[in-house]
Structures are given as C-alpha cells and as structure tokens.
C-alpha cells in the first residue's frame, strides 16, 4: 500500500468552547485534488491551517508522507518538535491565503524567490530564473518587477500561487483563494488552479466556487460544525447528496447563484 501524502487522524481543534475541528479524518493520495466545501464557520479553513501547523491541534495526529507532524516519539510518549523542525516540515507544504498575504515591500519576483533563497539556500541567480519561469506560468512574466500594491487582486493571488509553488511543495493548500476577489477576477485565478490540478499536483482546495469544485475535484468533502459530513466523487456529492444538510447547503447555493 502506498503512503498517502497527507493523513489526518481524528483531529480536534478547539477555540474556547467551540470545536472548529471535531474529529476529522482525511487522507490525500499523490496527485489527488481534494476540494472542501461547506458553510462559513464549518471548519474548512481551520482544516488547512492546522495541517500547515499554523494553528496547534488539540488532539489526534497528522502525517506528511508518513512522518508525524509537529511531534516526535520520546520515552514511550510524544513531545513537541523544536520550532526549527516544525519550520522544516512547513517548507514541504505550500499555502495560498484568502487575503494573498504577499510581502508588500518585495517585488513580485522577490516574493517568489525569497523562500527558495533564504529558506532552501538556493543560489540567488538560480532562484530568480525559476521565479521568472513560475511567474510566466501564472501569466505574469511582465509583472516581475511590480510591487503587490500595483497589481490587481487576481494578479496578486496568482503571484501568491507562484510563491507557493516556488519551493516545490509535496502538497498545495488553498484557503478560499478567490473569496477576496472581485467577481470578474475570479476566473483568472481558477484557470491557474485548474491547470495545476491537471498537471498532477497534490492539492487541498477550500472554496465557495461550486461549479469549479465539481469540475476540478477528484474528491469532494462537505464539512459542517467541524465534522466531515459527506465525502465522495464530485458527481456523487453534487448530483446525489445523501444528508439533509448537504442538500440544504447545495440548494441555498443554487438559489444564491441563480
């Protein structure tokens, strides 16, 4: 049996009284695109943020290529890894945020090349060439010297995607990548995501774009109240929802979109 790229095992994350993740199990295989849908506050964003160890989890376990994330075995129990090794694990994942979070004091090119140079110790000239190539792939070769504030939201998010790709991550995590965009800018970002999915990248995409989810997903997760309520192929989830909650969620969407 092949080891999944990512595995979450009964993961719980509590904010105060509220369980943002309430026992989530998930496996993502090499080359698979998993799309997570669900209402606001259902724990979708918390799922990817916890996976990237941006938030500590309260119980359960997570693995990247079979390696336990954030902890190590020690005297028959577990203990937290030092920050340097957590950083090393984060480097193997790429994250794209809802609010882009580009570094405003760096050019688009430097946003992309900074991590390969500083974190992975790549020679600056080599990293720069690769960054140019990555910007070309997201259609922004002519914007390499622009600062983020000079770019539209869609362009900023495409730079952010190039930045996430720059470290050749094992898995790409997208936290509602089009939710902060003006409607007419959504398509240019979805086009990039579509291409990445087609090229066999391993990805988890949290999104509210239902038709995009249906089209691009290998597998769909529907979350509500911190739990995965339904899981299956996009056809199954969208054409043949089993739970009342998913049916209600989808019909709300169809009304909203129509």
């Amino acid at each position: 049996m092949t080891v999944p790229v990512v595995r979450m095992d009964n993961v719980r994350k509590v904010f105060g009284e509220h369980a943002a993740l309430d026992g989530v199990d998930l496996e993502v295989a090499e080359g698979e695109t998993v799309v997570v849908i669900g209402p606001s506050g259902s724990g979708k964003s918390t799922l990817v943020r916890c996976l990237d160890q941006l938030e500590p989890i309260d119980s359960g376990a997570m693995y990247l290529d079979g390696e336990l994330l954030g902890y190590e075995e020690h005297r028959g129990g577990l203990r937290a890894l030092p920050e340097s090794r957590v950083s090393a694990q984060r480097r193997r994942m790429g994250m794209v945020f809802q609010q882009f979070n580009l570094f405003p004091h760096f050019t688009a090119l430097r946003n992309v090349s900074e991590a390969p140079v500083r974190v992975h110790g790549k020679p600056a000239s080599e990293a720069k060439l690769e960054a140019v190539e990555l910007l070309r792939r997201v259609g922004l070769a002519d914007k390499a010297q622009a600062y983020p504030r000079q770019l539209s939201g869609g362009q900023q998010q495409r730079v952010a995607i190039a930045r996430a790709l720059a470290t050749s991550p094992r898995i790409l995590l997208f936290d509602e990548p089009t939710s902060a965009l003006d409607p007419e800018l959504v398509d240019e970002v979805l086009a990039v995501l579509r291409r990445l999915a087609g090229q066999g990248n391993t990805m988890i995409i949290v999104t509210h774009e239902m038709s995009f989810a249906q089209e691009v997903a290998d597998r769909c997760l529907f979350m509500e109240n911190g739990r995965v309520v339904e899981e299956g192929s996009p056809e199954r989830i969208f054409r043949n929802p089993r739970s009342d909650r998913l049916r209600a969620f989808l019909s709300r969407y169809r009304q909203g979109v129509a």
Partner: protein
Amino acid sequence: MTVSSAPGLEAADRVGRDGAHDVATARRRRRPVHWVLSAVLLLLAAQLVNFVIGNKSFAWPTVGKYLFEPSVLKGLGTSVLLTMVTILLGTVIGVICLAVSLSGYAPGRWLVHAYVAVFRSIPPLVQLIFWFNLAYLLPRLSLGVPFGPVFGSWPTNSLISPLTAAILGLSLHEGAYMAEIIRAGVLGVDEGQRVAAKAMGFNGRQTFFRIVLPQAMRTIIPPTGSQFITILKGTSLVSVIAMGDLLFSVQSIYNQTFEIVPLLTVACFWYLVVVLLLSALQRRLEKRFARGHDREGAS
C-alpha cells in the same frame, strides 16, 4: 410670472446656453485680507532683520570668530557622537525589549514593563547626575556570582567617567522610548504577513528581520527621527556633569570672555545645522522604506 428673477440677470444667463459657461476660464477670487496680512508680516520681518543686524550685542564678528573654533568643533563632534551611540544602544535595548515581550516568557515581559515605566518617568537630567554619582551608592563595582565568589572588583569612580555616565543615562532613557516606538511599529504590521512567512518555512528570526521589521520601519522612522533630534538637544544636559559637549565648549569660552550671546548663537547655529541634516536624512530613509506602498513607480 412664476419664476422670480434676480435683478440684472438676463434669463439666458440664469438657465445657461450651450457652451456659454466654462469653469476653466474662471478668474481667481481676490482676497484683500491676505494682502493686509502679507503687509503686516513684511513689516514684522523687516523689524526682525533690523533687530538682528542693527543690535550690536549680537556681535556677529565674534560669532564668526568662534564658529569654527577647534574646541567648539570638538564639542560638536562629542555631541554628535554621543547622540549616535545613544540612539544605537537605545535601539538595541528597544529590540531586546521587544523580543523578550514577544517571547511569551512572562517574567521577562514584567521586567520590560518595569524598565519602560521607570526609565521613561525619570528626567534624563536627573538620571545623568544619578549615574555620575553612582559611587556614592556603590563605592566598588564587582563582577561575580550573586552572593558567591567575586572575579573582579573596581572602584566605581574609575569606571564612571562623565562619558560613561552620559552614555548610561541617555541610552537607558532612550531605550525605554525606542522599546515603545519599535513595539508600536511591529504591532502595526498585518498578522497575515507573519502567518505567510511562517507557512513558507521562515524561522522566527528571518520572519522578524526580513518581513516584519522592514514593514514596521515605515512607522518606526518618523518618531525615531524626532527621538534623534531630542537626544541631540538632550546631549546639552551632559554639560552639567562637566562633559565636553557643544554647549560645554561654548560655556568654557564665554566663562572667560563673557561674550555669552555670541557664543550661544554659535551653539544654536550648529544644533540647527545638524538637525536640518538629520531631517533630510530622515526623509530619504522614509522614501526608501515606502517601497511598494505607492501604486506608482516600477511596473
């Protein structure tokens, strides 16, 4: 008639014909009040010039004679050097305070709070005199384990010269201010920046120095510039502990010649020159760190 017409206006002017009006051809409104004010200001300026040139007590030739006097220039150098050392040490103290208070180690945070509270409250002049008289409180300074063995011990008066007292007093005072200035700048940087840097695998130090601090500099520089100027002027305080700064050097001259006003004018001139230079430098720095914060420029 239903429309009441204003006297002296033709109907066409009120309604407006096509092309009859174009605001680009409008004349500027006259402002007689401004003319009167300008006349008064000119008069006052003339009086000021007359006072400055005509009053023999200013003794401009004496000012010219002492402006480049070696002892005055040496004093100026001391003031500028002391300012730089103070700002540098103050910034180091400020960054350390920030690192400690962000580390999540509670006793460290309390210590920083206490330091800032105490050293911002005591006037720098009081601190200078206090440090200069440290020997009264501690006759000998020793290095060793608390309550344990002592490795070395020196008479306090041999360590605390006017220079070390000045550096200690001013730096500790300045550090308390810089801690607050740097903290405010760092808190102003969007949390998403830290999260993004973390997600990319930057460690804490890289995140702080490459991502957070450069962005915080925009808000840190203007108040730091003011601090720089405050400290430069504050160095004049060290003349009370007989340190040879700019003020002390002109004082030692006028104590012998009694040309008080011309020599204070010399000091004013040099303070003004250095502050203007610093302000110019500050504006250049502000431009440098504003990169990426305007929509114009490279694209």
